[in-house]
């Protein structure tokens, strides 16, 4: 994430009031990565007015009519007032200053940021702040992207009909054909087969918004059997008759304890140096980890195919919608969306689809594979996601802007980190724990220039197409860089990485000096 990306407005016309004694200053206001600049018109004093953004202690914005006012209270106790032309400009500048003054990446509000992109692509969606106080859904962020035609009241009703309040929200808008990927939790149909008109309306609105006559698929990440059983405990799945145009598919993905056990067995097998080597392959197979990788990737491919090939909208959910659901939606985006394969795009994807989407990191990553404690909520869902991304990167060596280094770093930080990004289970909890003010964001740590060589893929070249992975077992590999990391000499692969970098940077040097 570059600082420059936080600068939302290039420039705006503004008047600066510096206090009763100093005369007001009119001119063009600019925000750079570290400074606020006001360059006065030619007729007034030619001096440039400059303010270090870090010296801003608090910021307050007000809008009235078609102009706005920003009040900056500085750490040196100065109070400055900026009158700015244009409401949009005011809000943009305020947000830029807000983001930049911390010098940290906590300003990153992915739903909002992602919404800006969606809004450029289509008018069918809006940003709702119905969950502003987390009362509707404790595991969702404050802002959510929903169909424009559905009002907040209907959202509240739909939330009441979904487990944990996780009503269907937009995960990814596929601009090339206007289809949408949504995620939610299971509907609370229960044994009485309850229905909810607003929930049905919401999904109908999704299809209408995409294209008249569009179809949809609901990918349930549980088996049909398990989904049926969930009715006994109040859950269930969408009844066919209630959601015209939507077809349900069951693609069971392993979750929870079995997944954790698979992980534990794999790590055990990888670390077992005594084990007779001719049994290694069947032992690896017995861990079933690669099978989980295969299932996750195929389900993501199914979702992506539904959008790209069938022109259908896709809703993904399992039970709670905080684990395998996120696995599928995030992988489907990587397959379809070239932007999510960039360094920034991928970080944003992790932030938006995992952290903000309420994957309970604290519960899932409390222990890794060695703990003797009886596992309660631990499950390596996020690790499975990283493994799948690694497989994509292996099959498409040029299409991901980041390399294995970033995936390894995310794995480490998800389990233990000096940064705050993976703390807590949801945005609500992070708010209560004041994570943003009391810790640093992982992204600002990772985006230090010195880290780049380890994290970036020097061979990257933008690939505007969907990347369809091969999911045959022959095409999937054990992620040696992670699972055999401490038992193999890492030098050869590190030298190779360094070598590629060297060729690439040398060639740039040549260009520079030419």
């Amino acid at each position, binding site marked *: 994430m570059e600082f420059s990306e936080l600068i939302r407005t290039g420039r705006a016309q503004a008047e600066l009031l510096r206090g009763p004694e100093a005369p007001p200053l009119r001119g063009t206001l600019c925000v750079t990565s570290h400074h606020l600049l006001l360059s006065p018109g030619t007729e007034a004093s030619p001096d440039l007015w400059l303010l270090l953004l870090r010296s801003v202690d608090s910021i307050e914005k007000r809008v009235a009519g078609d102009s706005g006012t920003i009040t900056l209270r500085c750490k040196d106790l100065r109070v400055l007032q900026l009158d700015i032309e244009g409401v949009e400009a005011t809000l943009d500048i305020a947000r830029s200053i807000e983001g930049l003054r911390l010098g940290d990446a906590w300003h990153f509000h992915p739903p909002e940021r992602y919404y800006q992109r969606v809004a450029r692509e289509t008018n069918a969606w809006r940003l709702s702040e119905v969950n502003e106080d987390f009362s509707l859904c404790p595991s969702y962020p404050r802002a959510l992207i929903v169909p424009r035609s559905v009002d907040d009241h209907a959202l509240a009703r739909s939330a009441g009909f979904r487990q944990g309040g996780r009503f269907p929200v937009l995960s990814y808008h596929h601009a090339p054909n206007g289809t949408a990927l949504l995620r939610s939790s299971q509907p609370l149909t229960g044994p009485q087969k309850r229905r909810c008109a607003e929930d049905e309306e919401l999904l109908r609105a999704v299809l209408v918004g995409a294209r008249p006559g569009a179809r949809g698929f609901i990918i349930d990440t549980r088996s049909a059997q398990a989904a049926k059983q969930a009715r006994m405990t109040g859950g269930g799945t969408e009844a066919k008759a209630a959601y015209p145009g939507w077809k349900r598919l069951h693609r069971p993905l392993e979750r929870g304890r079995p997944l954790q056990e698979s992980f534990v067995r794999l790590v055990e097998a990888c670390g077992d140096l005594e084990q007779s080597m001719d049994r290694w392959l*069947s032992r690896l197979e017995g861990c079933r980890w690669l099978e989980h990788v295969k299932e996750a990737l195929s389900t993501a491919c199914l979702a992506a195919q539904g959008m790209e090939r069938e022109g259908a909208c896709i809703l993904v959910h399992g039970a709670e919608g905080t684990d395998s659901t996120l696995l599928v939606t995030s992988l489907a985006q990587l397959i379809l969306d070239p932007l999510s394969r960039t360094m920034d795009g991928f970080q944003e994807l992790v932030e938006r689809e995992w952290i903000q989407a309420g994957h309970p990191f604290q519960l899932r990553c409390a222990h890794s594979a060695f703990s003797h404690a009886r596992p309660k909520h631990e499950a390596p869902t996020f690790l499975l996601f990283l493994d799948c991304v690694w497989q994509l990167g292996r099959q498409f*060596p040029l*299409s991901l802007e980041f390399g294995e280094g970033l995936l390894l770093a995310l794995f480490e930080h998800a389990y233990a980190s000096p940064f705050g990004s993976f703390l807590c289970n949801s945005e609500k909890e992070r708010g209560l724990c004041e994570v943003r003010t009391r810790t640093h964001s992982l992204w600002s740590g990772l985006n230090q220039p010195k880290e780049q060589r380890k994290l970036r893929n020097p061979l990257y070249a933008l690939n505007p197409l969907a990347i369809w992975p091969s999911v045959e077992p022959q095409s999937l590999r054990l992620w040696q860089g992670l699972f055999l990391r401490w038992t193999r000499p890492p030098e050869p692969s590190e030298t190779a990485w360094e070598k590629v970098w060297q060729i690439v940077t040398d*060639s740039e040097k040549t260009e520079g000096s030419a």
Partner: protein
Amino acid sequence: MGVNLSSMRRLRKRLPLSRQVPRLPPSRVSSMASASAPKCNSHTSENEPVKSTSQDGVNCDLNETVPRLPGETLITDKEVIYICPFNGPIKGRVYITNYRLYLRSLETDSTLIFDVPLGVISRIEKMGGATSRGENSYGLDITCKDMRNLRFALKQEGHSRRDMFEILTRYAFPLAHSLPLFAFLNEEKFNVDGWMVYNPVEEYRRQGLPNHQWRITFINKCYELCETYPALLVVPYRASDDDLRRVAAFRSRNRIPVLSWIHPENKMVIVRCSQPLVGMSGKRNKDDEKYLDVIRETNRQLSKLTIYDARPSVNAVANKATGGGYESDDAYHNAELFFLDIHNIHVMRESLKKVKDIVYPNVEESHWLSSLESTHWLEHIKLVLTGAIQVADKVSSGKSSVLVHCSDGWDRTAQLTSLAMLMLDSFYRSIEGFEILVQKEWISFGHKFASRIGHGDKNHADADRSPIFLQFVDCVWQMSKQFPTAFEFNERFLITILDHLYSCRFGTFLLNCESAREKQKVTERTVSLWSLINSNKEKFKNPFYTKEINRVLYPVASMRHLELWVNYYIRWNPRIKQQQPNAVEQRYMELLALRDDYIKRLEELQLANSSKVSSASTSPSSPSQMMPHVQTHF
């Protein structure tokens, strides 16, 4: 310099820059994508396995339907139904020349479906009879040596397949019909002569031979001492030619211990030979015992000579029944013998057969890893690599000189010595170095290529056939995977070698030994595979190659770190195909070009700088600062 710069810019314009999108025709890319998507996708004919590697260097006339090499003649063509195991039946026209079997689709704008050298064919069977019912049940089933089968269906009327069957049999198995192999008809010309690559005297001189301890002997000039050895041998200085003759009598097929490689510093050596003829009675031979001691004494400080017998000990014992055996402790006091447990050619052949069963035509899905395990292929690879590592380690650590043998010393022995040499000597990791290694340890020392591959021979079930050389190349591939910067060549180089191992287009792998090749005048009458490769080296280069002197490579030979070579063994299956191979290759080519560019640029700067003698250059790209890069890495 200005001129140079503008020429560089022109070059740059032609080459896509590092950050640019690889420009592939979109239709092509999306169809590639669709081939790999899981389930519910339909394959288009574009995803057909297309064999392209053997087309290198073909000067084909675009107006002609079939590309032809100079010396290649079209024999016949016929309309057939090709039963593609992946996409179902496709109507096509098959062309048979004296070199290849070539199929064009008659359905979608005559795309090439495949182009297979006849040498690849191992077996031709008729399927169905004149009265068989059912669609496409009458035709031919062709088994290939490169992990695939080709099936054609023909019309039942008028014995239509008889012609095709006879012509194919005739040209695929020319030796059974007193016809020459295509290599002897091939009139291709290359601007490099591959036969010049290997000159034994030069190679031994590179190793610092002869020296005070080792001499070059021409005793085998007329292949009288040992028919299957090369003419030129390196033996201990202290062993007379008469000694050698007496030792030959005690070694299987007279394959006496001779030097393969010597360590440039500690002077430890790798020596190869065949098993001693101990037999049931436990015969001894003083001359052989003395000769091994002479080898040991070429390093004065050594108390023991290490003998690696590649076989499992059970097999070594069993060999006594047929007159063979191994060096016993009683007879050879100053030697230590270890068995390396590598199985014989029959076990390897059956193992590869099992690999084919699980990858072609249908890939085993549900229990892939355990099925793979049950073929034991990777286990054999592991044992071969482990053996080679032990040899290399003994020699490089200066602990001992090493003598390697198996039964006849032309299969497992060749694998072990050549792999150990590859680990020890970085010279062999360059393209030409590797060619020399193959030429020396395999071709000149009589690995029986003709018998193991069965060039032009119809006897597909011959027990002499075995994928020993393929197994060696697989080991090399495993090493190149683990050391991505250590080899000058890329995967395509290895696959090209394997393709021409069977193709019979070049003389390189024909016949069983040097004496037979000399008799047939192979170097005069055929073209070398290295001519093809060395005249177009760029295609076979690894862009990440970093030349290093004196670095010993020890691959990890644990099962955890070995992989099935999917790009070779499962390459015909479009669903398993490596993604974006074109884009990746193109990108690598770009990198190579960039690197060359960089070197050129550097030279310019050096020139410019040396002309300005007095100037204290502070430019960040001053050669003095960049020099270290060059010396260490290029």
